[in-house]
């Protein structure tokens, strides 16, 4: 028994990608037998994948960095032979992988009832599994070109899924916008990969990070990578695809899309802190870290403010949550930028100050919380759409009478996303506020004000959708089916659990992730 578990842990990095891929193509064949068998099959495949992710994450947190070389051979790389497909998992990958373990399984359980009336579900589930495999590949890979390939897989699968409501003009438009933006982002990334390959003759992230000498070409590559990944993550000047894509896709797809967005954000952190880590934070370029930090802070503040204000004026339920999601991404970005700006040179090494450390912790913690909070809100919006066939806030009203559980889930999501205790959003936002206050009080003021505005946005939604007089046209509305309630319940219970015991979570999962983020040397050491 123990042998099997060891074997699974040993091969989990490969199996995590391989099992959804195999499942994706088997789904088409199994779909010929019957829809019920296919749904059970997809849930089982995803459950196995999530289980393997948790095994791998547990292993990484106890035993340190894991590498896996596809096709065999030694795990360490001599600089002359640096081309091979290699997965490297440290605390940061593992942390993001937990998000990727939760969101797709929730989305698939939710889809059981939510998508029941639609046709073409074989392809729908195939694409969901492909998208999940692509997202997991982006998170786990240790190879920059591989990252590009998985980014493309994810983009193409998600574009097809965003356009799932083919009868609506808007969703096709949103999907087209998404695929154009993704293609531009991916080509930027490919260009940067080419710049690295031309200089260092390597595609492996750790090898590039070890050899990087910060030439002029490297600076160009940094700018290009930053632009591409920030575009995929929905930072404000490049955010225009996000509200459309999030708003027009089926709610179950939006939940996975949040995961892919955060995977891009992870890629950005990996580039800044690991690939450029060795040089960016060395003695003679702490100025560079400060510049980058200030740039990130400016982008983040703009992201938060614009996200919140655009959310205020929306009339469409899902579009409003999408803008709130943009604002939430701004918070993570703000914390990380603030941490970057506090780099100082002490005792022969570049160190982040204590408040910067705290900010980094809050920012990383918030990635997890954002995925859950915004995911829950989108699932609630999907449930409202499923029950009332309406997303316009002006036409909805009085649904709390008929949809008790959904209302409770919305309240949990509302409290979490606007940072009210005792939800998880409070825990991470409090860390961000406190640490930010020591770095620059002005940033804290902006952050808190925008958080309050976010609360105002969602209270307005709560009032106009769930409260108010009973509307005759919604008198026949019933509570949504069990599978959707279970999906929302899973996320809501995790939110409340983290909100009640944030310490357990911060100490065991977030701290290893922030340590890994700052420790580029050990990431390099895992391969070389």
């Amino acid at each position, binding site marked *: 028994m123990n042998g099997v578990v060891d*074997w699974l842990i*040993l091969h989990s990095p*490969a199996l995590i990608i391989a099992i959804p891929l195999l499942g994706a*193509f088997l789904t088409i*064949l199994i779909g010929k037998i019957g829809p019920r068998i296919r749904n059970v099959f997809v849930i089982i495949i995803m459950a196995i994948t999530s289980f393997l992710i948790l095994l791998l994450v547990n292993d990484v947190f106890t035993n340190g960095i894991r590498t896996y*070389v596809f*096709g*065999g051979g030694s795990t360490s790389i001599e600089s002359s032979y640096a081309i091979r497909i290699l997965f490297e998992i440290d605390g940061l990958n593992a942390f993001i992988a937990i998000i990727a373990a939760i969101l797709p399984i929730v989305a698939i359980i939710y889809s059981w009832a939510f998508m029941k009336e639609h046709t073409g579900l074989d392809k729908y589930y195939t694409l969901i599994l492909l998208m999940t495999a692509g997202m997991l590949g982006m998170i786990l890979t240790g190879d920059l070109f591989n990252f590009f390939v998985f980014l493309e897989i994810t983009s193409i699968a998600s574009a097809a899924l965003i356009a799932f409501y083919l009868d609506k003009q808007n969703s096709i438009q949103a999907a087209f916008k998404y695929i154009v933006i993704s293609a531009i982002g991916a080509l930027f990334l490919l260009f940067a990969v080419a710049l690295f390959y031309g200089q260092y003759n390597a595609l492996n992230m750790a090898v590039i990070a070890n050899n990087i000498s910060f030439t002029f070409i490297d600076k160009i590559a940094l700018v290009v990578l930053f632009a591409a990944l920030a575009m995929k993550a929905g930072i404000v000047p490049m955010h225009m695809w996000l509200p459309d894509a999030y708003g027009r896709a089926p709610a179950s797809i939006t939940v996975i899309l949040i995961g892919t967005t955060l995977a891009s954000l992870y890629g950005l952190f990996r580039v800044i802190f690991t690939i450029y880590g060795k040089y960016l934070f060395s003695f003679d370029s702490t100025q560079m870290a400060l510049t980058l930090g200030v740039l990130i802070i400016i982008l983040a503040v703009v992201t938060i403010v614009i996200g919140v204000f655009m959310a205020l004026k929306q009339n469409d339920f899902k579009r409003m949550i999408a803008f709130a999601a943009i604002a939430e991404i701004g918070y993570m970005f703000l914390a990380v930028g603030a941490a970057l700006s506090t780099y100082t040179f002490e005792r022969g090494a570049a160190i982040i100050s204590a408040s910067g450390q705290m900010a980094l912790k809050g920012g990383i913690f918030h990635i997890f919380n954002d995925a859950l909070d915004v995911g829950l809100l989108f699932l609630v919006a999907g449930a409202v759409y499923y029950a009332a066939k309406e997303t316009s806030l002006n036409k909805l009203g009085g649904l709390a009478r008929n949809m008790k559980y959904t209302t409770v889930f919305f309240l949990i999501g509302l409290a979490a996303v606007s940072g009210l205790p005792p939800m998880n959003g409070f825990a991470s936002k409090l860390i961000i506020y406190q640490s930010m206050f020591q770095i620059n009080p002005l940033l804290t003021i902006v952050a808190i004000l925008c958080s309050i505005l976010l609360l105002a946005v969602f209270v307005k939604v709560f009032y106009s959708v769930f409260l108010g007089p009973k509307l005759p046209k919604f008198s026949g509305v019933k509570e949504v089916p069990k599978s959707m309630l279970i999906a929302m319940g899973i996320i809501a219970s995790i939110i409340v659990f983290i909100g009640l015991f944030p310490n357990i979570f911060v100490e065991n999962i977030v701290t290893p992730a922030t340590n890994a983020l700052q420790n580029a040397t050990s990431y390099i050491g895992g391969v070389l």
Partner: protein
Amino acid sequence: MSGMSKIVKTITSIAFPFVMIYGLYVILHGHLTPGGGFQGGAVVASACAMIVVAFGSIWTMKKIKENQLSILESIGAIGFIVFAFLGLIILFDNSGIFFKNVFANSVYLFGQSVEYASTTANINTAGTLPLMNIAVGLKVIAGLFVIVLVMAYASNKIKERGD
């Protein structure tokens, strides 16, 4: 599109086997010569597209359904992943690894080892690689063919409705 003139149909019938054979050659020699599963598959699919153009999509649709092609495509993709899994499953001890080339230098199919000399290329080498090329080739043939076929068929239908 209800097919083209008799001349085009005849020429297509003559050219089709040659294009087909060339494509299959590129797939099977993927581990020896330039090209591989994708390139050869694209050549074969273009032969199939030639049939669609010459004989019309409605005639082709009667001969083969897009459903069958989609199953074929899935089988190609599954085949590729299964060959990757073989490296993990055949060597069930800890030396097995995902994507490991288990058939190379073994007694099985494509199992001979490559000689270090300027000899003629031996097709019976490279282990899992030719098998994976065949799987990718199958997927590309079915995938590209079904795209061309369905698009031609759908545009035909739209034209009919327009008239």
